[in-house]
C-alpha cells in the first residue's frame, strides 16, 4: 500500500480542514468523543489510542432526522463534505455493515447515502486497546487494512499515512508539499507497534474464544435458560443498542411543524418492550430474555444469513456502556459452553 510520512498531526488536519469540516477525537472526562476540529485550536486533537466512546453511525445516521416533509420540495439534508479522524478498524468495519443495510440496491436510503458519499474516512491504528475490546474474536488486528481513505499510524517523530482510496490519493497529491517518503525503518517500527497491540487483544480475549462458529452456537442454544438468567442483570437502559456501531433499528414517527408536517426517523432499540408490538397489542417479544435472544440471533445468525457477515465488530462499547454489567463476550462464552454440553448429551 502506498504510504507517506508527516511529522505533525495538525498539518494533516489543517490541510483537511481547508477543504471540509473535520471531526476529531477529544477526551471529555474519561470518554473519547468527536468534536469539530478548530484550526485556531489545533492542540484540541490528539491521537486516540483506542476507539471513541460514541459510534461512527452518528455521522451517517443521526439519532433523529427529518425523513420526509409535506413541503412542496421534500428536503433531504444538504450534506457538505466532512472528514472524521481517529476511526479504528472496528469503526471502519461497522460502516461496511451499515452500507449493506442502507445501500441495498433496490432500497437505497437517500438520507444515509447522502452522508456516506460525502464522508472522508481517516482511520488510525489502535495503540492501546481497551479491556473491553474484543475485535480479535472477529479477525480484528487493531488496525484497518481497507475501507479507509487515509490511515494514520503513529511512530517516533511523526505519522505514517496510508492511502486507501482514490479520494485519499487525490488529497495527498493536492497537498504534495506536506508529505515526505516513508523510510523503511519506520515501517518496521510500525509493524512492531501493530504486533504489540494485536498481541494484547489476543491475550485479553484468549479466554473468550468460542469453541465453534458463533452462528452455530447462538442458533443451537435458542432454548437456553441463559437468556432469562442474564435478563435479571439487564435494566433495559438500551445503552447497548445506542452505542453499538452496527445496531441500526429506527422508527418513523410523524410530527407537526409550524405550517407543514414531517416524518421523522429516530433510533430505536429492540430492547424496548413495545418494539415489536402491533396496534392490537400482540407482542412476540414481551419477555426481556426473548428480546436479548433476538438481538443475538439478529447479530450472529440472521444478519449473517442475509448479508454474509456478522453484525458485530467486537468494539466492546456495549460492555463499557452496560449499566447492568452484562459482558457480551462472557454471554457468548456461556452459550458456547452450553452448546458443547448439548453436543455431548446428544452423543450419549
Amino acid at each position, binding site marked *: 500500500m502506498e504510504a507517506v510520512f508527516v511529522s505533525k498531526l495538525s498539518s494533516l488536519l489543517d490541510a483537511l480542514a481547508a477543504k471540509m469540516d473535520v471531526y476529531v477525537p477529544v477526551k471529555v472526562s474519561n470518554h473519547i468523543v468527536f468534536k469539530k476540529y478548530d484550526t485556531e485550536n489545533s492542540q484540541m486533537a490528539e491521537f486516540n489510542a483506542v476507539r471513541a466512546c460514541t459510534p461512527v453511525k452518528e455521522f451517517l445516521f443521526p439519532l433523529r432526522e427529518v425523513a420526509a416533509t409535506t413541503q412542496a420540495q421534500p428536503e433531504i439534508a444538504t450534506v457538505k463534505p466532512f472528514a472524521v479522524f481517529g476511526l479504528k478498524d472496528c469503526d471502519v468495519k461497522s460502516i461496511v455493515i451499515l452500507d449493506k443495510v442502507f445501500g441495498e440496491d433496490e432500497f437505497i436510503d437517500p438520507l444515509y447515502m447522502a452522508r456516506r458519499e460525502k464522508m472522508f474516512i481517516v482511520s488510525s491504528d489502535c495503540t492501546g486497546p481497551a479491556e473491553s475490546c474484543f475485535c480479535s474474536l472477529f479477525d480484528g488486528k487493531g488496525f484497518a487494512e481497507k475501507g479507509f481513505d487515509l490511515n494514520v499510524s503513529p511512530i517516533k517523530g511523526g505519522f505514517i499515512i496510508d492511502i486507501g482510496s482514490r479520494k485519499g490519493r487525490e488529497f495527498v497529491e493536492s497537498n504534495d508539499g506536506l508529505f515526505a517518503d516513508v523510510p523503511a525503518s519506520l515501517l518496521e517500527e510500525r509493524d512492531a507497534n501493530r504486533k504489540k497491540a494485536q498481541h494484547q487483544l489476543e491475550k485479553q480475549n484468549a479466554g473468550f474464544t468460542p469453541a465453534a462458529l458463533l452462528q452455530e452456537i447462538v442458533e443451537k442454544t435458542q432454548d437456553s435458560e441463559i437468556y432469562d438468567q442474564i435478563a435479571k442483570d439487564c435494566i433495559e437502559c438500551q445503552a447497548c443498542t445506542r452505542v453499538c456501531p452496527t445496531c441500526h433499528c429506527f422508527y418513523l414517527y410523524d410530527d407537526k411543524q409550524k405550517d407543514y408536517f414531517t416524518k421523522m426517523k429516530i433510533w430505536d432499540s429492540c430492547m424496548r418492550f413495545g418494539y*415489536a408490538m402491533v*396496534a392490537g397489542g400482540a407482542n*412476540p417479544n414481551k419477555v426481556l430474555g426473548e428480546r436479548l435472544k433476538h438481538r443475538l*440471533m439478529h447479530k450472529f445468525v440472521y444478519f449473517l444469513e442475509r448479508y454474509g457477515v456478522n453484525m458485530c465488530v467486537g468494539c466492546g462499547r456495549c460492555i463499557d456502556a452496560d449499566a447492568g454489567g452484562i459482558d457480551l463476550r462472557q454471554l457468548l462464552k456461556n452459550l458456547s459452553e452450553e452448546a458443547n454440553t448439548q453436543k455431548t448429551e446428544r452423543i450419549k
Partner: protein
Amino acid sequence: MSGNLYQPISGRITDIIDESSTIKSFVVHPESPFKFATGQFVELTLPGEGEAPFTPSSSPSQTEQMEITIMKAGRVTGLLHECAPGQMVGIRGPFGNGYPVDRFAGKEIYIVGGGVGLAPIRSLFLTLVDRIKDFRKVVCRFGARTPEDFIYKKALFGPWQKIGNVDIKLTVDKANGQWSGNVGVVTTILNINDVNVKNAVAVVCGPPIMMRYATLKLLEFNFVPGDIYLSMEKNMSCGVGKCGHCMVGKYYVCKDGPVFTYEQIKKYPKIWD
C-alpha cells in the same frame, strides 16, 4: 424503487364506509395512479400524527382509487376512525411481495379468513374473480365474531355467493336471531372434502390465533407447508427491510412478506404472537 423511500405521496379520503362497530373502509384517491399487487401493503400516514401498515382491500386493477379497511386498534387507527371525507393522507409503498396469483393458476384456492383479515382477502378475491377461468375453483371459509361483525356484508351475503366456481361458507362465534348458518370458530367449517388437497393452495388471513389453528387444520388435511400462504401481521414501520421491527427470523415481513408460505417461517419462534 427510486427517490426518497420515506416520502409519502399525497391522497384524499373521499368516502368512508361503516363495516362494523370497529371497522371502517376508507376510499382513498391518491394524487397520481397507484399500482400495487394484491397482498402488498401500504403505509398510510395521517399527517402529523403517524402512519400504520394496511393491505388495500380493493382490486389492483383499480389504480385511481383504493380502498383500505381499518379496524380501530391503536392510536393511529383510532384517529383515522375520527376522520371525515376530505381528509388528506399520505401513502407510501406498495411494499412487499403480495400473493403469487400466477402460481395459483390451474389450482383450487382454499381461502380461510377471519375478522378484519377479510380485507386483504377481498383484494385477492376480486383479483381471482377477474380471471376466474384460470382457477379450478375458489373455496372461501370465513368467520366473524357475530353476524354484525362481518365486513363487506352486502357483497358477502349476496353477489359473491352467486359467482360460478366460487363456494363460500360462513360461520360466527356467536349467533343472533336471524343467523341460520354455522356457529363456531372458522376451523369448524373446514372440511377435508372442501378441496382436492393435492391440487390446491391455501390462503389464510385473520387474527393470529385463528391463523394458527387454521394452519394446523390444513396440515391435518395434508396440505404441504409450502402450499399454505399466510399473510403476517407485524409492526412494519419503514417498509423496506431496514428498521427491524417486523422481523420474523431472518425475514423482514415488510420486504420478504407480508405473504409467506408456512414452509418459510415454520422454524421460527413466536410467529403467531
